[in-house]
C-alpha cells in the first residue's frame, strides 16, 4: 500500500475530510459551452468568511485543498485567499484558465508554494479552443499564462476535456503539453448543470468516439488490459465504498453550501449557518451517503462490472437515485469491455447514454474529478 493509500485509509478510519474542493466564485471570463455552472454571483462568501472556513477546515484535518471556480482569478482577493490557505498548511491546487496570469501572478503563485495549477486546454488550434470557450483570443492568452507559470517553476497540468468538436485534437494538445513542460490529463467527462439541466449532455462523446478513445493505446496505455472483461465480483467488491465523496472528501460552493462532491450536488448544510465540523459529522445526508456499500446498489449490485466500474454516485444522484446506476458509466463499461451491464439487461438504461471517464496518462488509470 502506497503512502497516499495509507493516508486515505487513515483519514477514512478517523473520519477526516482529507480533501476539499472549494469554488471561490462561479463568475468566469469564459463561457465554455459544456460548463455545468451559471456565472452569476448570488452572494459569494466574503474574504473573511472564506478565511474563517479555512480555519475550520484545518481544524478538521483537511490537507488537500483545491481552489477553483468559475475562474478563481475573477475575485480581486484571490491572492489573499491563497496566501491564507498556505499559511494554514494546506496543500493547494489551483484550477484556472490562466487567461489572467502573467509574470507577477505566476511568480507569486510559485512563491506561495501552490503545488499545481491545472488549466483547461481544449485544442491546440485557436479556432477550436476559442469556439468552445466563446472568448476570442483565449487560447493565445491561456498559453501565455502557462508559459509564465512554467518560467516561474510551477507544475502545470493541461486538462483536455473531450467533446465531439475537439475529439481529434487530443494528440495536438498532448504535444503542446510536452512542448510547455506540462502534464496532460484527458477528460471526456461532461456533467449535467448544477441545477439539473441535462442539455449540455449533448456534448458527450457518442459511442463510436468513446470506442475509439478506449482502444487508443496512446491514450489508455495497455488496450488489452484496459478493455479486458471485468474480473469476477468478490465479497470485497460487494462491501466496497462507491468513492471517496462524503467519506474523505467534499465540495463547498462559493455560497457556503457543502456537497459530497462537485459532481454530487446533494445539499448537506451551509457553513454560513453551521460550522463545517457540525455538517461533516452530523449531516443526515452525509450519513446516508456514507452508509451505502456496493451491495446496496439497486441495479449495480448484480452487475458483472461491480468490481471494476467507475460508477459515479453523484451522476447517479443527478439521474434520480444515488443508489442507482450512472448511465454514463454503464455505457463506458459496455463500450470498453463489450460486456453488457446489468442496467442495460434490465432495460433500465436512462436517456443519456454517453461516456464518463478521466484518464491520467502518466498512470493510465481511470479517475473522476476531485473525489475519486
Amino acid at each position, binding site marked *: 500500500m502506497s503512502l497516499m493509500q495509507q493516508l486515505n485509509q487513515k483519514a477514512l478510519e478517523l473520519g477526516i475530510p482529507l480533501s476539499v474542493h472549494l469554488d471561490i466564485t462561479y463568475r468566469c471570463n469564459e463561457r465554455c459551452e459544456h460548463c455545468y455552472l451559471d456565472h452569476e454571483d448570488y452572494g459569494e462568501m466574503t474574504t473573511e468568511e472564506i478565511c474563517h472556513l479555512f480555519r475550520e477546515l484545518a481544524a478538521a484535518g483537511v490537507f488537500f485543498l483545491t481552489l477553483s471556480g468559475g475562474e478563481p482569478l475573477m475575485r480581486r482577493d484571490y491572492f489573499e485567499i491563497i496566501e491564507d490557505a*498556505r499559511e494554514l498548511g494546506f496543500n493547494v491546487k489551483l484550477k484556472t484558465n490562466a487567461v489572467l496570469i502573467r509574470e507577477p501572478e505566476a511568480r507569486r503563485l510559485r512563491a*506561495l*508554494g501552490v503545488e499545481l495549477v491545472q488549466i483547461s486546454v481544449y485544442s491546440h488550434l485557436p479556432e477550436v479552443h476559442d469556439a468552445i470557450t466563446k472568448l476570442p483570443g483565449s487560447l493565445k492568452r491561456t498559453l501565455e499564462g502557462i508559459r509564465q507559470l512554467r518560467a516561474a517553476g510551477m507544475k502545470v497540468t493541461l486538462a483536455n476535456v473531450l467533446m465531439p468538436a475537439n475529439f481529434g485534437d487530443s494528440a495536438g494538445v498532448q504535444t503542446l503539453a510536452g512542448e510547455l513542460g506540462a502534464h496532460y490529463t484527458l477528460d471526456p467527462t461532461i456533467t449535467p448543470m448544477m441545477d439539473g439541466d441535462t442539455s449540455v449532455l449533448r456534448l458527450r462523446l457518442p459511442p463510436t468516439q468513446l470506442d475509439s478513445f478506449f482502444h487508443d493505446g496512446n491514450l489508455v496505455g495497455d488496450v488489452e488490459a484496459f478493455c479486458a472483461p471485468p474480473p469476477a465480483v468478490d465479497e470485497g467488491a460487494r462491501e466496497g465504498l462507491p468513492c471517496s465523496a462524503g467519506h474523505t472528501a467534499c465540495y463547498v460552493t462559493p455560497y457556503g453550501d457543502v456537497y459530497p462532491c462537485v459532481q454530487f450536488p446533494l445539499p448537506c448544510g451551509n457553513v454560513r449557518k453551521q460550522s463545517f465540523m457540525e455538517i461533516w459529522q452530523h449531516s443526515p445526508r452525509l450519513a446516508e451517503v456514507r452508509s451505502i456499500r456496493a451491495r446496496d446498489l439497486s441495479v449495480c449490485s448484480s452487475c458483472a462490472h461491480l468490481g471494476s466500474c467507475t460508477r459515479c454516485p453523484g451522476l447517479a444522484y443527478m439521474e434520480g437515485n444515488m443508489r442507482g446506476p450512472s448511465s454514463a458509466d454503464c455505457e463506458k463499461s459496455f463500450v470498453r469491455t463489450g460486456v453488457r451491464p446489468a442496467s442495460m439487461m434490465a432495460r433500465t438504461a436512462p436517456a443519456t447514454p454517453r461516456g464518463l471517464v478521466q484518464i491520467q496518462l502518466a498512470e493510465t488509470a481511470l479517475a473522476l474529478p476531485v473525489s475519486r
Partner: protein
Amino acid sequence: MSDKYIARSTQVASRKLGDEMVIMSAVDSTLFSLSEVATLIWQAADGKTPLSEIARRVSTEFEVAPDAAYRDAESFVDELASHGILRVSDQPILPSARGAWEAA
C-alpha cells in the same frame, strides 16, 4: 561543537493527522509521514531554536539519552534537507532568508 539551526521550507504543506504529521513538497509532490519524534522536530524547526535545544526536548519527552536524541535529530534533519524541505544553517535563519533560499 557548533550548533545548527533548522527552518521549514515555505514550499511544503503539512497537517497533523491523528498522531502523525503529513508533509508534501510542492516542488516535487513527494509525500512524507513523520513519526511523533520527527513531528516534534519538524514543529520546532522555526529557524531560531538551536538543534541542540530541540534534541533536548526529544530526549525529555521520549526518554531518550541526550546523545542519541541529538544524533537521531541530526540524521532526520539531514534527510529532510536532502529533499529540500528543511534548511540547515550554523546561524539562525530569518524568515526573509528562507524566501531567498527557496527562490534560488
